[in-house]
């Protein structure tokens, strides 16, 4: 350790500050652009497959340059099932995210700020809801959904999506609240705010980056969920993942349609991401409080 320290010290003497900063910047962007390529190449391939006529989708050597066509998308939209499933998913997933935040964020706040008896056990219990594999959960829920008339209903699916994400919201938000100093609320209380006002006006704004991160992640987890839709819906509440799955289920895979459906599935997430990007960017949670 000591030798590498010395080496670093000597190295830093040789290079002047400006050169070093430029080098760091170049190295940084080289790595980031490298990963961008790893991320983008499969996405590019997916999107380009969806824009090629079916016969051209898998030709080798690849047609890097081609005349894009929206043929596959028109085919897709003309299947009313797809549009209905897509709308279903948007509705059910959005509702589940709102509900899971309303339930999970306040509970995480309490777990962070109050002395809960057996707090560790409570937290492990919450996390244990995520430990059963979905396949093992699906049969019991099939039974209970039948009994409660929740089978193939949007409400039932929203419940399932809430159940997937609740532990995640509680755990991640507890970690965030732990990082926000209690002195913030105490100051507000001294100024005459009630407990609830302190939470709403001081702590929540400070936790904004965390809340938006966890909202995105919850949205995505519900959005890509396949198994619950597969077992717990049949017609009314079918989510869009099931539609993608149906292309695989058949004997030969319709690559172009699958690519179009998969591309369409990414769009809401990207829209959501861009919409909350500003808040993710808000960065310093304390900065948010101090500015207001």
């Amino acid at each position, binding site marked *: 350790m000591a030798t590498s320290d010395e080496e670093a010290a000597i190295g830093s003497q040789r290079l002047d500050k400006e050169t070093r900063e430029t080098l760091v910047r170049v190295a940084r962007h080289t790595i980031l652009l490298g990963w961008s390529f790893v991320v983008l190449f*499969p996405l590019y391939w997916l999107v380009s497959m969806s824009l090629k006529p079916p016969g051209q989708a898998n030709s080798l050597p690849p047609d890097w340059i081609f005349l894009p066509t929206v043929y596959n998308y028109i085919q897709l939209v003309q299947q009313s099932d797809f549009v209905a499933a897509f709308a279903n998913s948007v509705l059910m997933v959005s509702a589940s995210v709102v509900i899971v935040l309303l339930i999970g964020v306040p509970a995480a706040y309490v777990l962070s700020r109050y002395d809960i008896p057996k707090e560790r056990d409570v937290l492990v219990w919450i996390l244990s809801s995520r430990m059963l594999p979905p396949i093992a959960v699906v049969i019991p829920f099939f039974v209970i959904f039948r009994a409660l008339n929740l089978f193939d209903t949007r409400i039932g699916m929203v419940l399932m999506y809430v159940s997937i994400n609740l532990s995640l919201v509680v755990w991640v938000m507890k970690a965030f609240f732990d990082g926000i100093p209690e002195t913030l609320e105490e100051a507000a209380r001294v100024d005459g705010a009630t407990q609830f006002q302190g*939470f709403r006006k001081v702590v929540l704004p400070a936790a904004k980056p965390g809340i938006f991160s966890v909202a995105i*992640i919850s949205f995505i987890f519900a959005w890509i969920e396949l198994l619950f839709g597969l077992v717990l819906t049949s017609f009314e509440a079918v989510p869009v993942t099931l539609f993608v799955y149906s292309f695989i289920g058949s004997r030969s895979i319709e690559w172009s349609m699958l690519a179009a459906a998969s591309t369409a599935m990414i769009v809401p997430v990207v829209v959501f991401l861009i919409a909350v990007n500003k808040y993710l960017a808000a960065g310093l949670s304390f900065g948010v409080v101090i500015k207001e």
Partner: protein
Amino acid sequence: MSTPTQTESANRTTLARLRDLWNDYLPYWFMAPMVLVMVMITFFPGAYDLYLSLIAEPTFNVFEAEFVGLSNFETAFTRGGAFHSFVITITVVVSALALETALGFVLAALVAGVDSGRMKGFYRVLFIIPMAVAPVSLATIGRIMLNSEIGVIPYVIETATPFAAPAFLSDVPLLTVILLDTWNWTPFMFIIFYAGLSSVPDTLVEASRVDGAPLWRRYVHVIIPYMKPVVFVATLIRLIDLFRTFGVVYGLTNGGPGTATQLVSINIYEQMFINNQLGVAAAIAIVYLVLVVALCNIIIAKVGFEGVWD
């Protein structure tokens, strides 16, 4: 917690009383809905799986059930391939978790340090997108892009480099699963680490910079300790989720070739829907649950609560 004087309390309206009820018992109101949902989604499935694992045939009348003791568990481990699937699963969990944690942290730290706000936003949005690709879609895209005969990736490797491309799906199926999962889920670590890094107060970092601490030391002694809860939570959640990996393997290899990629979740699925052995499937799920709960308890006891939570 202001206690109103006697005269004030005498004049209180119902609304004000309700407001006090709300404020005085705030922690209870805040916890109640969560506890309610949790009771519903943890106790029932667990109990039902335990019941299924102990009976011969599922029946809707509990009293008619023929209890068979641990024979479903025995079947799972003798003929059900449970042991193999646990070993495979742990291999995937450990390698993918290490890859995703390291990559996610490095990327988050690099993006956090980008000067230009616009580039920062670009990277941040781009790096999260793979998570939006449903594992089932990813598996299918992977299947076509990695195909030895018509896949673009082997084609590019062989035309652009002197190396021969491996047959991803038949020669190195487990590695392929790990790499696809890394592509798919590094974003999860990235976004949580990024938000965690953003919550480190500027003043703290500035102070250590003024002290002349080199970059790595700033990370090891200031930044990482500060965001330890976030790192810990992200890793633990990803660990649990990796254990239940299903969609990507189901679509990519369906457990094969042979049983090379038969993860626990795939094994349970096969016992359940293909072999129609609900009891054996439930038995594997119970063993799995006990294993994961025990593992998480150990991790939390060893790492989690030493100065992280209290």
